[in-house]
Structures are given as C-alpha cells and as structure tokens.
C-alpha cells in the first residue's frame, strides 16, 4: 500500500497561504487512502498556477498547453483505458481557453476526472478576470469592472448532462477528499470545481468570503434528479452549495468503441501479416 511519502514531489512554487496547498494535501491523502500507486495514474495539466500541481506530487504527468488538458486526457484514455486519468486546470485554463473542449468532453463522456482549481482569477498572469470572476470585479486591465456575466460551471455541466458534477472548497479538506473519492469511483466524466482562494490577486473571494457562503448539501438531497440538480446548480451568491450536485449513469466512451471494449489499444499487438489482404480493396 502506498504511503504519503511515496508522493513527495518538487517543492511548490505557490504563494504562502494559497488554496492550492489544501487541494494538494486532499489529493495526496485521497490516492493514499484509495491505495492508488503513483505509476497507476496520469495527471494531465494545463498552464497556470493550478496546473503546476502534478509536479508537486509523484505521478505520470503530461503538463501540456494552456487550455488543452481535456483533449490530451481523452487521447490517453482512448489509448489506454486501464490508466486512471485526471485533468487538473485553473478556471481560466478550463472555462476560458479550453471551453470548447470541456463541452465536448462532457458529451463524449470519457472517463476522466477533471479537477478545476477555481480561484475566480488568472493567477499566473497576475490578476486578470477569469470566466468565473464576479461581474463588476475591477482589475488592472478592467478599470470599469468586468461587464460579462459570471460563468456558472455547475449549471453548464448539468445542462450538458455531464456524468458527475460536484463543487468542493479548499477550506474543507475532509469534505473535498470525499468528493475526490466519489469522482474517482464514479464511472464517467467528472467535473469537480474546487473553490480556491487566491490570496494574492483575488481580494474579493477570500477564505472569509467563501466561509460565509458555502454550505454542505444536505444528505437527503438526491443528485440523480436532473431538474432538481439544475435548480441547485443555479444557487450562487449568499448561499453556495458544496457537494455532489448531479450524477448520471451514462455509458462511457471507452465502453462504446468496439475496438477497445476487450483490451486497451496500447496492449493490442500490431499484426502486419493482414496488410497484404487489404490490397484487395484496390483491385
């Protein structure tokens, strides 16, 4: 069984007090508790403060381009669906630059766990608004405040029938771990949006701000009812729900492709002897 020490990575380059540390802690404890070894999973990350994540633990890593985590993760799963695959990205990375991929990953229902470190700001590039920034937020490049309406990733995901939709908070590590476990154990594309205070650039959505508003979804709530889930997903402002908002049992893409149903592509040997026969197509 792996222990926490097995996951020791590079020293993090995040700001002191950053919400990312709690997410990292929750993640490491989650994989240890589930008994998943470093070589058994791959994290695909994008670019941003959040996306440095895989370097700070130990695992197979494809730290790719800004916004492009999901296509890479999709490619990995299609080539090897025995590999557990995570996509880790910031809100700018995933909801901004990579928005198109998010929509289609949900449609495909590829079995990837997407963890978005949602600090409602562009951290790495030093404080521009992200798609989840509050309307009116003033930044250096938005002196009149943000005009666009805030994106609601939970509502978007429910609308697109995303297989697993949940929200966590970096200030609630134990609860976050439970959500990470549920996402991993859920078969289907999982979106876990994690509220992550950015102590340097987001002076509005602070720990205090979130603590005043977040609440854990009551145990009686059923995430299987899509209409209900949509209502819950729309909640934002004075009260922000944490927990599993929606889930369904859609079949995953990997199980629908006949060619890989029995064996992952990466294990299928190439048989050159059949090539000669294909020449028949041309006569």
């Amino acid at each position, binding site marked *: 069984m792996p222990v926490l020490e097995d996951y020791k990575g590079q020293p993090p380059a995040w700001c002191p007090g950053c919400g990312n540390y709690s997410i990292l802690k929750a993640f490491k404890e989650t994989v240890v508790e589930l008994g998943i070894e470093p070589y058994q999973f791959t994290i695909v990350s994008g670019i941003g403060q959040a996306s440095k994540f895989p370097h700070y633990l130990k*695992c197979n890593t494809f730290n790719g381009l800004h916004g*492009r985590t999901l296509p890479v993760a999709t490619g990995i799963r299609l080539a090897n669906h025995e590999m557990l695959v995570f996509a880790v990205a910031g809100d700018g990375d995933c909801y901004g630059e990579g928005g198109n991929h998010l929509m289609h990953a949900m449609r495909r229902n590829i079995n990837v766990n997407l963890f978005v470190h949602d600090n409602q700001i562009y951290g790495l590039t030093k404080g521009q608004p992200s798609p989840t920034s509050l309307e009116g937020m003033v930044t250096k490049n938005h002196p009149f405040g943000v005009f666009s309406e805030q994106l609601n990733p939970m509502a978007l995901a429910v609308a697109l029938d995303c297989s697993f939709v949940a929200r966590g908070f970096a200030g609630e590590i134990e609860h976050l771990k439970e959500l990470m476990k549920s996402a991993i154990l859920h078969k289907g594309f999982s979106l876990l949006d994690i509220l992550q205070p950015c102590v340097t650039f987001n002076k509005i959505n602070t720990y205090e701000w979130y603590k005043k508003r977040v609440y854990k979804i009551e145990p009686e709530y059923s995430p299987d009812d899509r209409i209900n889930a949509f209502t819950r997903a729309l909640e934002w402002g004075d009260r922000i729900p944490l927990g599993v908002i929606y889930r369904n049992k859609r079949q995953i893409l990997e199980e629908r492709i006949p060619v890989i149903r029995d064996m992952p592509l990466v294990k299928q040997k190439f048989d050159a002897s059949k090539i000669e026969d294909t020449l028949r197509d*041309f006569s």
Partner: protein
Amino acid sequence: MDYSIKIGGEAGQGIQTIGDTLAKVFSRFGYHVFTHQDYESRVRGGHNFYQIRIADHLVMTSREKIDIIVALDLDSITLHEKEVSPRGIILYDSSLIGQVPMSGEQAVARLDMPLLELATKHGNKIMVNTVATGAVLGIFRLDLQILAQILETTFQKKGREVVESNIQAALSGYNHVIAHCKTCVFPLEPETSAAKQTMMLMSGIDAIGLGALSSGCKFYAAYPMTPSTGIMNYLAGKEKEFGIVVEQAEDEIAAINMALGASFAGVRSMTGTAGGGFALMVEGLSLAGMTETPLVIALGQRAAPATGLPTRTEQGDLLFAIHSAHGEFPRIVFAPGTPEQAFSLTNKAFDLAEKYQVPVFLIFDQYIADTLWTYKTFDVNPVVWNDYRLRGEEFARLNTYKRHAFTETGVSPLGVPGEARHVVVTDSDEHDEEGHIIEDAETRNKMVQKRLMRKLPLIRCEIKEPLYYGGSNPRIVIAGWGSTYGVMKEAVDFLSKKESIGLLHFSELYPFPSPSPLTQNYFSTLKNAQFTICIENNATGQFARLMRAETGFEFHEKIHKYDGRPFLLEELAGEINARIGRL
C-alpha cells in the same frame, strides 16, 4: 495508345461514379490508367469534371487534349469543346442539357444520345450514369463483362433486380453507340486486353491511409477538412480489423492534442488536416517538439490563403510547414510525388517520428490526394517496423527512469506510462531530465543540446537524396517537389526526344538534403547543368527559396502555376520549351 476521357457535370450528378467505374474497368483489363478530379466546393450544381487517361504504357499525368467528353451539363461542352482532339467526340443527351449551340471554329463530332430515355426504359432515370458508362465502353468495343461484375458488387445490397436493370442499361448505352455512331471507334491495342495482368488502382490519399495502417498506426484524431478527410475515412474503415481508434475531434487544436495524448500513452498516432486546420494545430506542434512526443501530421495543401479554393490544389504550405510553431526544435518534412512514395514515406514518417521522438510531416495536396494511379503490384512488405518504446519487462528492469535523460544521441528512453513502477513525466515548460519545470540557464542549454543539436545530425543522415530521372550529364535540369513528379517526369520523356534534359524530384525536404558526402551526386548534376528550371504549383517559388537558403544555389528560371489547377503535360512541356527557346 493514349486516350483521355472527360466526364463533366454538376456536383451531385454522379460524374465521380462514372469516372471511378471506368477507371476500374480499364485497370482490370490491364490498361494503365491515370485520373484527376476538378470539383467545386459545393454539394449540388456548379461544374465539375473527372478526367481519365488510358494507355498501354505507364502514365502519371493528365493531358490537355480530350478524346471523349461525356457531357452531363452544358458547361461540359461550352467550356471544354476546345480541348477535344481531332478524332474526338462529345456524348450528351439534349433532353438532359437542352439544345447545344453550334461549335466554334472547328467542328467537333457530337453524339446526341437518349441517355435519359434508355435509363427510364430500364427502370429508373438515375441509371443515366450507367447508360453513359456503357456508351463509353461501346466506343472502345470493350467487353461489358467486367462492368457487369462491378455493377454487381455496387448494387448487390439493393437486390438482384437493381443489378440486372443496371446491366441492361449499360448494354443499351453500349449498343446505341455501336448502332448510331459509325465513326465512334477508338481501337484498343488488341494484345493488351485479357492477356494483361489486372492492375490495382490507388489514390494518393488511400496510399497515405494504407501507409499508416502498415506502420502500426493505432490512433487517428482529426477534424474533417478537404483534402485530408480521405485518410480518416480510410482508417475508420479499418478500425475493427486492425484495432485502430479514429476520433473526430471538436476542432484541430483538440485533434493534435488528442494524438499527442495517445502517443504519450504508448500508441502510434497521427493527425491530418489542411492548411487552415494546421494553422490551428501549430501550438500543438510546438508541444510535440518540446515534449518529444512522436507524431505524424498529414498536411493537405489546398489553394490560396484562409478558406481559399477549398477543393483545389496548390503547393503553398511548404515554408509554412517548415517554419510553423514557436521555439526551436527538430522536425522532418516529406512530400510524396506518387501513391507509392506516399505509402513508403508515411511508413518512414512513423518510423522516424518514434525513433527520434519528433513531429514528422507528410505534405500532400488536393491533386495527389485525388489522383488514381495504376500498379501491377504494390509492395507493402518491405515496411520498416521497430517498436522504439520502452515497455513491460524491459521498462520494469530499469533501476531509475528519466523521461528526458541526457544521452549521447539526444534520444531519451520513451517509457510507456503504467507498464512499470516508474513514472513518466513530461512538460511543455522547459524541464529537467525527469520532466519537471526548470528556469536555470544550465539545464536549458543542456536540454536544447539534447533535444535539438544532438538529434539533428542523426536525422540529417536519414534524409535521402532527391530522385534523378534522365540521362547522364543533362544540359537542362528541371526540379520540383511533391505532387508535380508525374507531370515533370512525362515532360522529360516528351522533351528528351530533342533535348538533353533531366529531372530532380525532392520528396524528402527537411532537414534539407544540403550538399554533403551523402547527397553530392544530385548537387553536381544541378551545378553542371547549363540551364535549371524550378517548377512549382505556387506563386512565390517556395522550394527555390528553400534551396537558395540551404545551399546558395539559384535556379536560372522558374515556372509557377497558382490558379488552383494542376499542371497538364502539354502545358508544362510547352512552358519548359519556351524557356529553353529563350536560351
């Protein structure tokens, strides 16, 4: 014997069906066939044509003069009548296309035949195409038996009755020509039929697909775009039999990133697109370079910037492919000139992509993609297939593993994640040997030396000299690259009756085969020639510029064509002749 047939009509009328069927019939009879297509970017209407050349010798380009026009629209006559050879004839049906105005200066033989009436008589007006196909075969007095076999396979699923009525329709077209057009006789070389071996018909695009298949390609992600879509279609048709996954991505950015993900996970991957789609992929290309992830990219050129002429041809993206993407990293660029080369270069692309962990391009164009060539045999056997990835036991046995380890060759071990307890780490940020982000100058320098400087000389040694065709010590050398091979070669055959002329054809373009002990032969041929002409299907002479940049050599003359159409034999030979004349 050397005949050309042009089938013209609107999009959606089925001229491709007639063309493909005729090409099949003649090739099965053992004739050499070459076809090319000219079509508009629309599904219905407009004017398209399909041109077929039939000969008793190897042919690899289309000619200007046409012997038979099958006109399914009026444009086929008004636009192309002037191309008809003195012995030629135009087949049409005035009940389909209306009254045809008198021809110009020279009277061209025409046969107004009741295609529609014959089709309707045998059951359905959609069989007009079958009647026309039969009529063409009637002109050649070519036995309908092979056509019947083809109709059988085409319509099998629709039932016996449909097969039979199509055969009868073809026969009616055949008989009509014999009965009503005494002068419509084009003799075929008698000894050719039957005795000759059946030929295979292969297009450039299928050859790339077949090449990928034969190289163990397991994953193909793409977004549809002419002229690359045929690769996706071909591989999708082989998914089950060969264990391939073909994914239609949401856009080209996703396509290249998916292919990189699959390659990282341990399977041979490829993506394909046209210039516009490739423009979207460029950041992903840089990612392939940085993460040293093997990748094959098929880049189909079409004419003009932006959307341009979507279904037409040009050699306009050579320098784009070579210079695309930010940062410096090695890449390889091939451009096949025949389906045979398309097959073998695709194989070489897969091999080198994995051997050196670099992106490799196959540049082609609409012309080579759609042309059909005949082959007696097509050698799929001498395919290079080495698995350069580190898997299973071999991987597990290592004490330590670093994905980007510094090595003498610059090539680091390519571990397959999950196959051993080692983790595989790579990054688009500059990284250390393990794959983790770095900022320090020393590691950066060492990484550039590993990733780029050490690999480059080794990659250079893999690049073959251009192909030379012609006699020794030619006075005149023409040069070109990619899809113009066929027309240039035939132009040399045509002109060498009077001239000492040779051809240099480049299909392995980058790293450029600069003068070296390996490639000095071609270079001395070029230098010793009295007159050199560079021929390109573009406006600015991109290859000539590359040649000058890489070798300092400057061609004496250039011939460019950029109207979106391919060079035709007489046209190119005439252009070359004119330049020689000015000497």
